[in-house]
């Protein structure tokens, strides 16, 4: 048997491949950092969402006891984003998009849910991105892609459903804002159900385009969103048909706390 001349130590390509090694190592490290940041952001966002589910009214600023709970999670989120922001600049923004998207979506879910609770409005992509970049307090910026935004909104519809059902069970009506941003009373024809229908309608009729991964994720999440709408529609239906049985002239027992009229939705 034979051999090359004593071997590999002398390979002329060694030094070039050392360059490749460094490049690949950096690439893998950046990727790993994004994955870990994404996990941290996801966990913190979930905790924010849980705290927000304790809110009981729509259309007013988040109560202080709840925002005190969420603040440290927001801090975690923004510092995690800030830590990987340098890894997401230039071409790298899209290079590691798939590794950070989980965190971005969950963040979108959290802040769009909070925004909705406060204003009964859907936050825009631009506003969400601005909030993120303001929160990070670093020079480098992170973009929230249309895909991240939409997939986050999909998940948010599930939280809207939970909020709506829980509210109907505990308060007895379909949630809707009663006051404008300044606390003045307003007349409002929109409810969580009509907003949820509107949002689901927008999501369902959006052609998800040519990105295979996005289209697949969106179509999976659409199924869940449709189920959420269905759950709320059924709950409202239940409220209504039970309400229909109320005898004429029936008044709530005044020993109980005052509550919404169910016709209000």
């Amino acid at each position, binding site marked *: *048997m*034979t051999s090359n*001349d004593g071997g590999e130590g002398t*390979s002329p*390509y060694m030094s070039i491949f050392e360059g*490749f090694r460094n490049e*690949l190592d950096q690439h893998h490290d950046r990727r790993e950092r994004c994955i870990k940041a994404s996990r941290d952001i996801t966990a913190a966002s979930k905790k924010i969402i849980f705290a927000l589910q304790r809110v009981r009214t729509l259309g007013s600023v988040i109560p202080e006891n709840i925002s005190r709970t969420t603040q440290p999670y927001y801090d975690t989120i923004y510092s995690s984003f800030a830590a990987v922001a340098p890894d997401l600049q230039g071409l790298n923004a*899209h290079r590691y998009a798939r590794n950070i998207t989980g965190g971005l979506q969950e963040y979108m879910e959290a802040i769009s849910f909070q925004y909705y609770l406060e204003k009964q409005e859907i936050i825009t992509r631009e506003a969400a991105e601005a909030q993120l970049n303001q929160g990070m307090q670093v020079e480098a910026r992170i973009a929230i892609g249309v895909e991240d935004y939409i997939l986050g909104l999909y998940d948010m519809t599930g939280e809207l459903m939970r909020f709506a059902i829980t509210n109907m069970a505990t308060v007895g009506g379909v949630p809707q804002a009663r006051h404008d941003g300044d606390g003045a009373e307003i007349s409002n024809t929109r409810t969580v159900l009509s907003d949820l229908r509107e949002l689901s309608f927008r999501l369902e009729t959006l052609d998800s385009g*040519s990105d295979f991964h996005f289209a697949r994720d969106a179509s999976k999440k659409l199924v869940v969103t449709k189920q959420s709408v269905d759950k709320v529609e059924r709950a409202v239906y239940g409220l209504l048909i039970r309400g229909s049985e109320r005898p004429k002239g029936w008044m709530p027992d005044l020993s109980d706390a005052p509550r919404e009229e169910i016709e209000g939705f």
Partner: protein
Amino acid sequence: ASLEKQFEDFHVQLEESGSLRDRIRAVVMEIESTTRLMNATLLLVHQSRPTPELLEKPKAQIGVLKELYNRLAVVLRECPGQYYRYHGDWRSETQTVVSLLAFMHWLETGILLMHSEAEDKLGLNNSEFCLDVEDYLIGICFMSNELPRYVVNQVTAGDYDCPRKVLKFITDLHAAFRMLNLRNDFLRKKFDGMKYDLKRVEEIHYDVKIRGLTAQGDSIGEQEIQGQS
């Protein structure tokens, strides 16, 4: 209404990205069909056609490829910074391109086509549209997979010096690849396969060596083995 406006914007953006993708795919299909052509000619090396003539046709196609990559770059210039967004659409074809270029280069010069040389040949030397290192490395692995077959057929055709040359090349290449830290991904899998290419070439080298076919000229070697067995 604001929601409606937003989603209309999204629709436009997704449409645009879709049409961009369509244009990318159109170019990529041309790249694919060009490499198919080049490959068809290159495969003749396994039938031991004289190399220089044989390389003429595929070398002429390199210009075509360069032009096509230029068209890709032009498309991508419309969406700066989104190279990696669409990267998946041309990765696999580009890996094939690299493997062909590297094989041709090796047939001509006996040495490895460098990453920067590959970029030059394809006109990919600006910062916005580069040749991804992993694609380059995977392409090189593909080329390595072709070498054992090449050696077998060269020896069959009487070129007994070929195994030694290829063995040296693939040994060097393998040693260089061993420098890398790979994840459990496609590149790792291709590299894992390279050791079998190395082993096979070593075996063929051994086959010709023990029969004393390396030192002498081809024709003599031929006659000698006929008397053997």
